[in-house]
């Protein structure tokens, strides 16, 4: 991989350790800004959902979930729409900047799941869930991580497309049509939010398991004592 390892030496003890530059600046900036935007979108989205917590007809209205107001953002429908229609641009901008940067810098190879990663999936699943041996790792992300991150990016793109289908069912009528109509677009938008939350849940567990150096790498770019060999 392109990540370049360096050796750090403590001048007093002469002990050495290694560090790898894993996350370029744009990736880190987009990660954190998008994290904030994502939670604002989810919180305000749930407040918007509270105005009509259903996916069928208005008459008769079948209430699906009485989502608690304390777990929503914006206070009322109009307030939530202000948050949603403001932060969607931040969400989209960081998404475009991230994807564009990854493509043009070639850094996408770090996270993009391809056919070459398929054989590596099962050994990782066995390791994580069935106490199998840890497969040796030669790059920042293993096959399962690449799968998770690639899926998360795809879900992010789908969340925007389904959102536009609801916001602009006339100008983007073809988008709503592709999703099975306006009702389906609204349901997809809702389901994709839960899928993203499921990713976030798994992501946070893995970050906690992998410890401080791993967490700090998304802030400073540098991962100390990586558990894979550098090339």
């Amino acid at each position: 991989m392109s990540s370049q390892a360096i050796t750090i030496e403590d001048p007093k003890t002469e002990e050495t350790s290694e560090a790898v530059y894993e996350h370029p600046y744009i990736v880190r900036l987009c990660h954190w800004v998008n994290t904030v935007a994502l939670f604002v979108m989810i919180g305000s989205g749930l407040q918007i959902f509270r105005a009509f917590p259903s996916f069928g007809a208005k008459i008769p209205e079948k209430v699906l979930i009485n989502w608690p107001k304390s777990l929503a953002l914006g206070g009322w429908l109009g307030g939530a729409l202000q948050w949603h229609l403001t932060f969607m641009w931040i969400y989209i901008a960081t998404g475009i900047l991230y994807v564009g940067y990854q493509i043009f810098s070639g850094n996408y190879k770090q996270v993009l799941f391809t056919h070459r990663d398929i054989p590596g999936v099962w050994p990782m699943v066995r390791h994580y869930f069935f106490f199998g041996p840890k497969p040796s790792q030669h790059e920042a992300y293993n096959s399962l991580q690449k799968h998770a991150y690639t899926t998360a990016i795809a879900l992010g793109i789908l969340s925007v497309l389904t959102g536009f289908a609801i916001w602009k069912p006339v100008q983007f009528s073809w988008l709503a049509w592709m999703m099975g109509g306006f009702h389906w677009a609204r349901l997809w938008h809702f389901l994709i939010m839960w899928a993203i939350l499921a990713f976030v849940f798994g992501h946070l567990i893995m970050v906690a398991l992998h410890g401080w150096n791993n967490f700090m790498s998304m802030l400073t770019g540098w991962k100390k004592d990586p558990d894979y060999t550098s090339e």
Partner: protein
Amino acid sequence: MSSGWRTLAHLPGAVTLKRNMNSPIDARKFKGKTRRELLKLTPALALGGFVIPQLQKPLLKAGLGFSDWASSKLFREHHLAPTFADSDVAPLNKFYVNTYDVDDPGVDLASWTLSVTGAVQKPGEYTLAQIQALPKLTQNTRHVCVEGWDVIGNFGGARLSDFLNMIGADTSARFLYLECADDYYESLDMATALHPQSLLCYEMSDKPLTREHGAPLRLRMPTKIGYKQAKYLTGLKTTNVLQKRGYWEDQGYSDYYAL
């Protein structure tokens, strides 16, 4: 030169680690390097402005304004909203009624007129018969409520553009301002008013508008969100300056909300 990795690699049975060819850097130098990288993220803290009470309102207003601007750029004058088959139309008893205060503001239908003011050549009082004398357009379109529900209705009426032509409206004016019998009020951008599907609607499902649906005359634009479809119209003004933008808009909803 006494890199730990090289020593490790010489141990029998050790995992082969690729030796790093760079000379080692000082731990303090590395600390400074990571600190600088961390500081580069400080622009992200600008988002904190949204939690400062004095800044939150203007920031969200600007965000909504940007959305409205983008929305107006996405609007296409000749792009038609989807229309639907008669079998998709909801019967009137399945068409939900949202009102501002009362379902029936008690309009005297016999003496009703629409007051036209503003930048028009022929201001004055217009009767329903005059509006009904204009070519009639009937279409099945989707009514979308800001709350998230929608319903397909059958709407009949005169094109708003034909009416504006009849009253000699200055179509270079920016807005229409609408007044209603129930004190609701609305504004509409001229581009949407001139859209071929924008109606002064007096019929739903081939019958005169019922009172709860806005008798005798309402707005019906399939390119706009529900709260812009003002009912029980009493006044229409062509203007460049809006004192008020609409009942819900003045509470904080989008001014332009186009579908």
